[in-house]
């Protein structure tokens, strides 16, 4: 199907089914029930799942295939957001031109940054990308925001104001990002007994784009180009002496992953028309690294899982507070209840990073292949242990190969 083998086609169909049914799947608990706070099926969070999924899929094309660990990919995400908001300010709230420009600008940016950074490999490459991203952050945060030349609107962040030109805007169109008139915020809520499911236009736009870019990622993974990228990770020396120039291969991978990041940034702005410098900060770059490793570096679905996992924690665990805890543990005798709440307290609310950090450590130590490996192990247990691991699938057994500087 679509030029994919059976296994990949199945994966694509599963991903499509999951994203399209996400409003149901993510809202398993009746509204108003005690468990309702674990529901993740509200538009804002679902959009974020998808957007960071796209970001991580792209990042994995660089990191998972070539092994080049970039610590600056948030810069491309930020650039994408700024580009989109400028389209909103100057021309139109239609998201198509905005998203297109995000991808184009991120491509140009990543071509430049990649060209310079890829002169080195290993840790030096990572540091160079980090330096570029922090420079971009500084530019966005202060340098490019002054009364004479205000490109980024500094601390406040770039947003659309009533006196912006918006040349192609007509009054009949929504005063928010829209797709040919369909507002990204428009949501249809389906009430089924005690349950409520939200179907949001913005979410479905993101979902369709995710499916397209996920499909493209599969094509890249299975292409001769993808094989060359894995060869780069495995042995650059052999590549050079085999008549292959590694530089354009790594640069192409870098630019492709930068474009995915720009797309994610553009979609973020399309869901909520503002862009801030904090989107480019190194913590944001680090987050996508965590997502990819947590999900499974070099696997197709891993980065999407990792992104979902982290965003779920960020949004759900951070909302649990002491009152909620007291409710949960109310059945315990008072003294013990307080004690349990005291123990759990550091891991929830603002402390969700702590929980995530622990989980991350557990995964990296016990499941070096990430959540995907966990899934495969469970699958193997269920099928019976007879079947040996698939040796035809090298990208599912990623190995650490340090890049020796040339």
């Amino acid at each position, binding site marked *: 199907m679509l*030029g994919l083998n059976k296994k990949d086609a199945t994966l694509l169909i599963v991903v499509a089914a999951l994203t399209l049914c996400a409003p149901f799947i993510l809202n398993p608990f009746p509204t108003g029930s005690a468990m309702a706070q674990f529901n993740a099926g509200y538009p804002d969070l679902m959009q974020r799942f998808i957007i960071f999924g796209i970001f991580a899929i792209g990042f994995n094309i660089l990191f998972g295939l070539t092994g080049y660990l970039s610590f600056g990919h948030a810069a491309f995400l930020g650039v994408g957001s700024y580009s989109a908001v400028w389209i909103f300010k100057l021309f139109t709230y239609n998201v198509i031109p905005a998203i297109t420009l995000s991808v184009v600008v991120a491509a140009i940016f990543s071509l430049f940054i990649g060209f310079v950074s890829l002169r080195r490999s290993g840790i030096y490459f990572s540091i160079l990308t980090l330096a570029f991203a922090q420079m971009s952050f500084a530019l966005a945060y202060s340098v490019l925001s002054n009364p004479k030349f205000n490109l980024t609107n500094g601390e406040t962040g770039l947003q659309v104001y009533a006196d912006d030109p918006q040349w192609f805007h007509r009054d009949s169109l929504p005063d928010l990002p829209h797709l040919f008139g369909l507002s990204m915020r428009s949501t249809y809520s389906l009430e089924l007994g005690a349950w409520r499911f939200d179907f949001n236009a913005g979410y479905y736009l993101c979902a369709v784009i995710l499916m397209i870019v996920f499909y493209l990622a599969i094509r890249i993974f299975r292409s001769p180009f993808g*094989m060359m990228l894995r060869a780069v990770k495995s042995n650059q020396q052999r590549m050079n002496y085999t*008549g292959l120039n590694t530089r354009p291969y790594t640069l192409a991978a870098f630019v492709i992953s930068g474009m995915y990041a720009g797309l994610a940034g553009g979609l973020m702005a399309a869901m909520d028309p503002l862009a801030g410098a904090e989107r480019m900060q190194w913590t944001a770059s680090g987050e996508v690294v965590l997502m990819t490793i947590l999900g499974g570096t070099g696997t197709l679905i891993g980065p999407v899982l990792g992104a979902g996992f982290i965003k779920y924690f960020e949004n759900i665990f951070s909302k649990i507070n002491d009152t909620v805890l007291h409710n949960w543990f109310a059945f315990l005798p008072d003294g013990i209840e307080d004690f349990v709440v005291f123990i759990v307290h550091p891991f929830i609310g603002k402390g969700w990073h702590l929980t995530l950090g622990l989980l991350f450590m557990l995964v990296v130590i016990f499941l070096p292949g990430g959540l995907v490996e966990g899934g495969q192990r469970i699958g193997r247990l269920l099928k019976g242990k007879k079947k040996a691991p698939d040796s035809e699938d090298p990208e599912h057994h990623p190995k650490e190969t340090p890049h020796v500087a040339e």
Partner: protein
Amino acid sequence: MGILDVKNVNKNFGGLKALSNVNLSVRENTVHAIIGPNGAGKSTLLNCLVGKLIPDTGSVMFDGKSVLGRSPYEINQMGISRVFQTPEIFGDLTVMENMMIPIFARRDGAFRMHAYESVANESGIIERAEQVLEDMNMADKRHMHAAAMSRGDKRRLEIGMCLSQEPRLLLLDEPTAGMARADTNNTIDLLKQIKEERDITIAIIEHDMHVVFSLADRITVLAQGTPLVEDDPQNIKGNPKVREAYLGESA
């Protein structure tokens, strides 16, 4: 004039004269062995031929064109393939993929952005890779991870990868080092067969005299960075200078 001409090449590492005034001419369609004791500069000389090192002085011409200043991938695209002293293969990839990459490199050049096509549809490349694996007696290992193979198999794979490119000049750095006797004999047979079947020039560095005298048409003895003698195999055996510098030492 040979297919490969090395003239007055010098290479120093700090104070160490690794190569001094090396002249070497390899005639087309011959097997030229370079022998010499450890540290004689054999690998260094090879590195100067493939762009890994740049000689301090001198010239290296391949087929009338200078290779100096070109990167390894350009030199490979000119028609020189190289096997390393310790096998260099794509350990994370399967044997089949290892074999396909050099064939892609020959067909598509140093870079091609074929990111949308599927490897599975490249029937021409697949057939060719399978055929080379067959020739190398490795067809049963095609789905194995290259890193999981024995050292001898890795070496054979590397030789196969180089041969799949149909190079005009094949450079082998101790291709039988660390191989069992049987594997060594297989390699000799393989190289003999290649030499008969194709238009190929081979330059081989080797310590194993059995290999050298079974294959070589011409031998250069290198000692302390300088070529001592260059002659036909039967004359090398009796040469007193060679005995002293090399054969005597190891006997």
